[in-house]
C-alpha cells in the first residue's frame, strides 16, 4: 500500500543507522489514516519550516480534568484525519517495567481507536499515545481503565510521578523508589486527575545522587536517596580494580570533591566525616565500595524549566528523611509542601518561583523544617536581614551566639 502523501524530505530521515521515527510513522500510516495525515502534515512542516498545530483546546474524559492534550490541525482541509489529533497520557508503571502481555494489550486498544503511534515515554514519564480524535476518548478510557490502566496528569495538577528503577535492579538505591512512587501516585489520584492547583507540580524519585531520573532538574519535589554512615571498603576488590588498570590516584583520589579519599598503592582510605556522599568513588568502584548505616532521602524542592525567569534546580529543603513504608512521614511532609504552595501561589506560579518570592523562611516554617547549613551553598551575601521579634528572644539574648 502506498501512502497518500509524498514525503521526500522525511524520506531523507529514513537513511542512516539510528532508528528512524519516520519509519515508525510510516509503519503506523499504513494502518491508520490518522498517522498517514500526521505524516503528511509533518512533511509540510519540513517543507515550510513551520508547525501546523493549533493552540491547544480543552478535551478530556468525563470526571477528569487532565490526561489528554487536545490538539487540532491548522490545516484540517488538507489533512482531515488530523483535524483532531489529541494525545493521551497513560500513567506508566513504576520504573517503566512491563510484561509483553500488558504492552500488547495497550497496543491493541490503541490500534483500534488511535493513530497507532506512541511515545515510549513522555518526558514526565507517561506512556504517551500520540493522536486520536475527540470521539474516541471515552471509549479509550473505558478500555484502558477497565484493564487497570489510568490516565496520567496534564494541566495544573500533580503530574504523573516517576522514579528510577531503584532497588529493583540497582545496588545503590537507598530506599524503594518504585514503591514510594506507586504509593504517592495512589495517594494523590484526585490531585492528579482534577487540576485544582495553581500550576503543575511534579514529583520524581531517585535512589541515589546519580539521579537517573533527573529529579533535581525536572521536578518540583525531588526525593533523592542518601545515607548516614561510612562507606565500607573491600580492599581485595580495590586491588582488583588497580590490577585491572584503574589509576586510582587520578580517577578516584584526585576526583573526590572533598579530598577525603587517599590511597597508598595498597590500601584505600576514606575520611568519612568529610565525605559529602557525592557517589563518585562508589559509582566508579562499585565492587569495592558501598554505603552503610542509616538510609533515607534528601528532599529538594523547586526545579523547573526556564519559562519565565530562567531555569531552577531544586533546592535542598530536608537534608534527611527516613523513607520506609507506609511512608507516613514523607507523605505528611509532601502534603504540607503542596498545601503551602497551593495556599499561596498565584496562577501559573510553580513552587520554586513562589519560594523565590516569599523567601525560604515562611516555607520552612509552614512545613515545620528548621534552618540548616545543608540547605545553602553559602550563607547570605547581603546585610538585608529580616528579623521577627521572637528571634530576639529566642536566639540573640543567649550568651552564646
Amino acid at each position, binding site marked *: 500500500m502506498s501512502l497518500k502523501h509524498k514525503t521526500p*524530505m522525511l524520506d531523507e*530521515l529514513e537513511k542512516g543507522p*539510528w532508528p528512524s*521515527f*519516520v519509519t*515508525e510513522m510510516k*509503519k*503506523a500510516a499504513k494502518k491508520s489514516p490518522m*498517522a498517514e495525515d*500526521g505524516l503528511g502534515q509533518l512533511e509540510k512542516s*519540513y517543507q*515550510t*519550516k513551520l*508547525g*501546523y498545530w493549533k*493552540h*491547544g483546546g480543552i478535551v478530556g474524559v468525563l470526571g*477528569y480534568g487532565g490526561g489528554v492534550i487536545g490538539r487540532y490541525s491548522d490545516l484540517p482541509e488538507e489533512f482531515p484525519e488530523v483535524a483532531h489529533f489529541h494525545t493521551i497520557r497513560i*500513567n506508566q508503571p513504576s*520504573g*517503566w517495567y*512491563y*510484561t*509483553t502481555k*500488558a504492552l500488547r494489550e495497550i*497496543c491493541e486498544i490503541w490500534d483500534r481507536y488511535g493513530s497507532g503511534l*506512541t*511515545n*515510549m515515554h513522555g518526558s514526565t*514519564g507517561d506512556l504517551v499515545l*500520540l493522536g486520536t480524535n475527540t470521539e474516541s476518548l*471515552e471509549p479509550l478510557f*473505558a478500555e484502558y*481503565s*477497565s484493564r*487497570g490502566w*489510568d490516565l496520567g496528569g496534564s494541566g495544573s495538577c500533580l503530574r504523573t510521578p516517576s522514579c528510577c528503577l531503584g*532497588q*529493583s535492579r*540497582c*545496588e545503590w*538505591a537507598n530506599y524503594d523508589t518504585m*514503591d514510594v512512587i*506507586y504509593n504517592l*501516585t*495512589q495517594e494523590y489520584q484526585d490531585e492528579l*486527575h482534577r487540576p485544582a492547583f495553581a500550576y503543575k507540580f511534579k514529583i520524581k524519585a531517585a535512589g541515589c545522587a546519580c*539521579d537517573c531520573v533527573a529529579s533535581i532538574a525536572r521536578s518540583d519535589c525531588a526525593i533523592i536517596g542518601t545515607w548516614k554512615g561510612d562507606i565500607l571498603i573491600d580492599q581485595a576488590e580495590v586491588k582488583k580494580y588497580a590490577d585491572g588498570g584503574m589509576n586510582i590516584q*587520578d*580517577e578516584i583520589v584526585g*576526583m573526590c570533591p572533598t579530598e577525603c579519599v587517599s590511597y597508598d598503592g595498597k590500601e584505600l582510605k576514606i575520611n568519612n566525616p568529610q565525605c559529602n556522599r557525592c557517589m*563518585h568513588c562508589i559509582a*566508579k568502584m*562499585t*565492587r569495592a565500595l558501598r554505603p552503610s548505616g542509616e538510609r533515607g532521602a534528601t528532599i529538594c524542592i523547586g526545579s523547573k*524549566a*526556564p*519559562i519565565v525567569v*530562567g*531555569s531552577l534546580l531544586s533546592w535542598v529543603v530536608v537534608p534527611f528523611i527516613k523513607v520506609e513504608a507506609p511512608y507516613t512521614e514523607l507523605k505528611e511532609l509532601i502534603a504540607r509542601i503542596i498545601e503551602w504552595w497551593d495556599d499561596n501561589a498565584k496562577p501559573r506560579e510553580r513552587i520554586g518561583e513562589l519560594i523565590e518570592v516569599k523567601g525560604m523562611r515562611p516555607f520552612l516554617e509552614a512545613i515545620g523544617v528548621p534552618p540548616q547549613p545543608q540547605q545553602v551553598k553559602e550563607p547570605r551575601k547581603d546585610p538585608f536581614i529580616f528579623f521577627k521579634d521572637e528571634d530576639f528572644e529566642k536566639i540573640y539574648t543567649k550568651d552564646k551566639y
Partner: protein
Amino acid sequence: MALPERQTDIGPPHYEQFLPPVIKKNYAKWKYHEVLDPGTMVHVAESGDEIYTVRVASPRILATETIYEICDLADKYCDGYLRFTSRNNIEFLISDKSKIDPLKKELKDRKYTVGGIGPRISNVVHTQGWVHCHSACTDASGLVKAMMDELYEYFTEKELPNKVRLAVACCVNMCGAVHCSDIALVALHTKIPVVDNDKVGKMCEIPTVVGSCPTTAIRPNPKEKSITINYDKCMYCGNCFTVCPPISIKDAERDGVAIVVGGKICSLRSDPKFSKLAIPFFYNEPPRWPKIVAAVKNILDVYARNARKHERVGEWIERVGWEEFFKLTGIEFTHQHIDDFTFMRDTLRTSAAFKWA
C-alpha cells in the same frame, strides 16, 4: 462491541506484576553490576543471582507494530519481561545468560541498535516538535535522528571520558531537560510576535497578557483594545503566545536552534549544573540540519580529545575555563553569550584572573 465498564482513580498498575522473578527475588539485594559491552550489563545480587540487561535504542516515537515486534523478542528471550529507561531506551531483561547472544544476533538482524551503556552517548531526551506541539520552533525527532546518525558509533562502541547526555527541546518551554544536559539543542524564536489586535481583544485578558511578559515588553493598547510589544525589550520567549494564541510568534525564516553545553544532573564530583550557551543560532535546515550536526560533533570531539577520564563536559570546561572552550572549539563569542537576564550577576566575570586564549 460494548465498552467495558470504566473505572476512575485506580492509578497505575502495581509494578510488581511486571518484574521478572529474579528481580522480585533479589529486590533491594543487589550487590554490584558490570558493564560487559556497550549494550550489555549484568547485575549481581548478594545471593549470586544475575540479571542481564541488553539496551536497545528507540526513536521514542514507536508504532504499535514495532512494539509488537519488541514483545515477540522479549517473549522469546526474556520470558516476556522488558522495560524502558528514563532516556527512552528499551531494556531487555534476561535471566538466562545463554540467551544474550542469540538475542543480540536477532536484534542485529532486525536492524535494532544495541548500546548506550557506560561512558558514552545514550538516547537523546527530546520532545514533540512539529510532530505534535503547537509551540514548536523546530522538529525534535528530526534533529535527534540527524544528530544520532552522525554520533552513532558513540552509542554503539566508542568510549568517551564519561556519559554525555544529549537533549533537544523544540521551544524554550524545554520539556526536554535541555537546561541540564552535556550538549543540547533548544529551538528558539528570534522575532517579536505579530499581534492580531482584533482577536487579542476578544480572546485574551489584557492584564494577563501584560503580566505574562518577563521583560515587561508588553503594554496595554487601549485604543485597539489590544496590546503593543516593545521591540527593544522582547526576547521572543513566547510566553505571551502561550497565554494568548492570537499573538503569533512562529516565523519560518527566523525560527531556529541554539546549542547549549556543560549541564549535568547527578551530584557526582561536582554540583548539578545548568547548560550554558555555546552557539546562539542556527537556521532551521530540515531535513538534516547539517550545520547543527557538525557543530555538535565538533564539540563532542573536542571534549573527547581534551577531557580527563570521568570528567563530564561541564566539568572539563570549568577546569580549563570558558576562554579555552571557545578557543578549542573555534566557536565565535558574541553578545548573545553574555547574560542580560536573571543570571547576569552570576555569570559576569569578577576577577582579574582569566586566560588570554
